[in-house]
């Protein structure tokens, strides 16, 4: 079985801050990590490999420094890693990104057919959850989103059964391979890399693909040109301040306190007082 896992290197959101004046995200000095949701999908793919054999290829589209994220995935046990990087990809939105990744995965499958593609539910920096479904649509794969558990994969009948979190319950879905799965958080726990895999990761020769290697001819569908999304404004929401008020009465009698409270509420919310009057009548 050949599984491709799509990952993204993202700034560690726990350490990110918004500039108080310019409202832009301050990325400087913020450590980069593998998008946490992607790690659940990688671990799930590695577990399927443990059961059924085969290999796991990790792929990312990003700047050259995304290499560190891929290397990390190798240390967990992925077999191959491909960095799709090209200046032409800069400024891509989810439409252009899913186009580029789908093209790259198509290239991968020319070498060895791809049975499954795993993605995280979404990234923690973009939060759109659109790239996974975008890839599935472009590659004409079955799409299973918000998967909380992969129950089984049958390699002879080429079917997969998963549990999918839906509103109000859990759906148990079965479909044909090849398919694309986006994994929810908390579904598994990433393994602790072995010493051998740490050595392999440190020495691994990553594949670096530019636009041409990824099999993309039409530059109008990638990068800024292929991205109809426009970010018109970024702002940091105002922190809500709720002030507590301590009500006191001179006598300290509960009755007086209650009266003070009621009169205060009625002055602040005249409609409430009207309702009470109506009800009394």
């Amino acid at each position, binding site marked *: 079985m050949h599984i491709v896992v799509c990952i993204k290197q993202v700034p560690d959101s726990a350490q990110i801050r918004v500039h108080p004046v310019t409202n832009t995200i301050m990325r400087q*000095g913020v*450590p980069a990590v593998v998008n946490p949701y992607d790690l659940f999908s990688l671990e799930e793919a590695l577990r399927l490999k443990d059961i059924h054999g085969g290999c796991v290829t990790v792929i990312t589209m990003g700047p050259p420094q995304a290499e560190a994220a891929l290397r990390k995935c190798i240390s967990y046990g992925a077999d191959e890693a491909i960095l799709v990087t090209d200046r032409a990809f800069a400024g891509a939105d989810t439409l252009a990104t899913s186009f580029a990744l789908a093209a790259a995965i198509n290239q991968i499958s020319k070498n060895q057919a791809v049975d499954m593609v795993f993605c995280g539910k979404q990234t923690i920096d973009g939060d759109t959850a659109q790239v996974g479904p975008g890839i599935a649509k472009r590659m004409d794969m079955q799409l299973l989103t918000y998967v909380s558990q992969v129950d089984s994969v049958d390699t002879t009948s080429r079917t997969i059964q998963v549990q999918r979190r839906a509103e109000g319950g859990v759906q148990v879905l079965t479909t044909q391979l090849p398919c694309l799965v986006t994994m929810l958080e908390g579904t598994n726990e990433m393994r*602790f*890399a*072995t*010493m*051998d895999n*740490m*050595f392999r990761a*440190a*020495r691994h020769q990553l594949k670096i693909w530019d636009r041409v290697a990824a099999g993309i001819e039409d530059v109008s569908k990638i990068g800024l040109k292929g991205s109809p999304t426009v970010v018109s404004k970024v702002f940091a929401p105002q922190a809500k301040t709720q002030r507590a008020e301590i009500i006191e009465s001179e006598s300290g009698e509960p009755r007086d306190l209650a009266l003070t409270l009621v009169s205060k509420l009625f002055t602040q919310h005249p409609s409430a007082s009207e309702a009470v009057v109506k009800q009394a009548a």
Partner: protein
Amino acid sequence: MAEKFDVIVVGAGPSGNAAAYTLAKSGLKVLQLERGEYPGSKNVQGAILYSDALERIIPDFRDDAPLERHIIEQRMWMMDDESYMGAHYRSNTFNKPPYNRYTIIRAQFDKWFSQKVQEAGALLICETTVSDLIMDDDRVIGVQTDRMGGSVFADLVILADGVNSVLARKAGFRPELNPGDVALAVKEIHFMPQETIESRFNLSGDAGVVIEMVGKITKGMMGTGFLYTNKESLTIGVGCMLSDFKKQAVSPHQLLEDLKGHPSVKPLLEGGEMKEYAAHLIPEGGYKAIPQIYGNGWLVVGDSGMFVNSVHREGSNLAMTTGRIAAETVIGLAQEGLPFTARNLAAYRTALDNSFVMKDLKKYKNLPGIFHSNPQFFTTYPDLMSQAAQTMLTVNGIDKKSKEREIRRSFTHKRSLFGLMGDAFKMWRAFE
């Protein structure tokens, strides 16, 4: 399959990086293991970089190392609760390249240094803790890491694992840390605009100031405070002997809060935003606390060997120098085809003895003991000095001769003539 290297370096701080870089550059097969997520993620220092030590390893480090400001002014403050009495030295010769000292941010600097180590050909593996040394009789033949299949072998293991050096302790190479031999330092980094720092400290360009502080700020404990200017931030910190913290039951955090609130310090920090808080143990036992630093198949460098000159606030340069000299010793032996036995590795100790490292530490060998048992140097004297200055500088109709008499009396009253002479002798002994 367990791997085998020429040398394994445990730790990617200044000493480990210096050793790994020098070894890898000579063509030896080097593995460096670091427990942090990346080199620098767990490393804490003031932090001042002394150019000389690094220059001897990477001569052109200034080309791309992340440096904050070069130091053109040193201030020494002796403080009581209300005042400081200071000696400042500022010179324009410090403002001409090549600069002698820089402030740095370790998380960035260590990343850069590690990059150089990897470019030199060493294999770095992070997030991996060495739990034990693998021994064959009395010879170290490798390390055991916390990962599955975690044994790695080498002809030599260099312990650059820092002040606590759990490995050296576990292997019985050195005793448990003595609280009287280590200082606990805490520091904060406060961000503020570059212009504010430059106007507040009378600076321009990349020039910087360091302030070293002694006196009542350490509440009678043996220690110092410091304030360094970075590009867009100030580092403020204070450190005292661990045994003193224990005895006085003062929290390091409170000590730093009080220092930040000192009337002479507070205005300097005004308007800054605290972004980072760190604490670290510093080996300050000096010459007498240095353990065995070599044996069959192993060497100790940096903080793990207690190589810190607490008087001159030098540590990272001693770390880099011991790392470099250790590596040079190993390269020498390898070139002659000699095995890494204790007898052959003794050359490391000899080389250190002949370097500034041991010479400086030897010079101050009595100092820690003297200051430790005489807290008056940190409490009574700053008070007396401050009172003396105040008496002389206050114009109030009293004649100067009477004032001098009053100052003399205050000294003999507080410390007695005998005590003063004793203290003078102790100071001479400490710095002889």
